[in-house]
């Protein structure tokens, strides 16, 4: 069973075996509006937690997507490059951005769980 963790920048992370799949949350895609462009990281690139790893643009605005944890990019989702609307339609599934091999899987524990993220977004108003 995989459990999902969240960042305060509205990224989600799901650990499946040795790699973590990452994307932006439903809250994030709703705030952004219709996504029209994504720029994904290079496979093999290394990031520290909080580094800008991807860019997502809506009609009105551009936003950064940060690496939730430190690690190396194992795969990226070309499907959302070709069809950015997947990010709006299925942000937690087909709309995933990249998979990262964690430098230290324990880092994941420091991210918010589902309930904590729900409380967090409710507090944003």
């Amino acid at each position, binding site marked *: 069973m995989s459990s999902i963790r969240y960042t305060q920048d509205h990224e989600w992370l799901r650990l499946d075996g040795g790699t973590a799949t990452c994307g932006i949350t439903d809250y994030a895609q709703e705030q952004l*509006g*219709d996504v*029209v*462009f994504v*720029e994904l990281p290079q496979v093999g690139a290394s990031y520290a937690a909080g580094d800008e790893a991807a*860019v997502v*643009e*809506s*009609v*009105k605005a*551009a936003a950064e997507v940060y690496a939730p944890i430190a690690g190396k990019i194992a795969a990226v989702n070309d499907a959302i*490059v070709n069809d950015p609307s997947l990010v709006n339609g299925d942000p937690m599934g087909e709309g995933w951005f990249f998979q990262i091999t964690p430098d230290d899987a324990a880092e994941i524990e420091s991210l918010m769980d589902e309930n904590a993220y729900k409380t967090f977004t409710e507090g944003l108003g």
Partner: protein
Amino acid sequence: MAEHPEGIRRTPLYALHLELGARMVPFAGYEMPVRYRDGILAEHKATREAAGLFDVSHMGQFRIRGDDPAAALETLVPGDIRGLAQGEMRYTQFTNEAGGILDDLMVTRDGDELLLVVNAARKAADYAHLRTRLAGRADIEALEDRALLAMQGPKAAAVLARHAAESGALVFMTAAAMPVGGIDCFVSRSGYTGEDGFEISLPAARAADLARLLLAERELTAVGLGARDSLRLEAGLCLYGHDIDEATTPVEAALSWSIGKRRRAEGGFPGAEVVQRQLAQGVSRRRVGIRPDGRQPVREHAEIRDLEGGPIGVVTSGGFGPSVGGPIAMGYVTAARAAPDTPLGLVVRGKTLPGRVSRLPFVPQRYHRS
């Protein structure tokens, strides 16, 4: 217009916007809908495919009265106002002594009077400008108790015809008083999308009633400021404060077409000498359309470079064109680089992306001219 305790203003449609699930944002001192539930792409497409209804009540509406309002207004704008026939309207600009643009506006002749529609962000400045410069010559009334609705798209005429039998007689850039849904309105066939459409001025107290009546028509969708911006950008239309401002002349802005032939010869508006010189000798920079080659949108303030990497201009409006299906922009480039298809470098997040100068508009105009 209702006044909010903190100072931000609301249009007469505020409650209706909330009912329709609008996301409200502050704009030019008003709380305005940037989008409704379906979002910007859907609203944009609905306007081009059927019809969209926009609340533009935040914009300034003025009436000018006097012995010769047209001659008076011509001392402030380069457009041909004296030549307006009854019910005819023109697009023009207030200019300053350097030929720079203080605002762009629509002017309509209504009998012996003129009706002006100006940008919301400039309406206080425009009113002061008119009052100061035309003092003793004309009377300026700010129509604070009137709302303004825009209905735009290929189905707009059919929708309006059901509620205003006389609307079909209007052609592009003409206007007339007429009842709409039994409410006395002043209707013009004009807009800011490149589509056929109408702008309806009416008493603020009736605006919500009319909006609800029109929105009951199946072809009509409520559209917010987000889609209003993508629609006007695809149409190649300027947004004051971005594509035109006090540092740009109408000639640099590729708006010379709006300067009457008689006005070019006679002048008589602020900055006329500058404009006349630019018309005769050319300009050093010009507003152009821009198509990035890839999918990455290029937005306002992005630097424009030539193929050698030298700076040649700046993007003044940019984003995604839903009907075009890709990124579009407008900006100013050195005149020598302004020809269509000239290759450009567009700087985004420190990288230079390829693009080219494009003709405007990005989508065909579909005005009802006859």
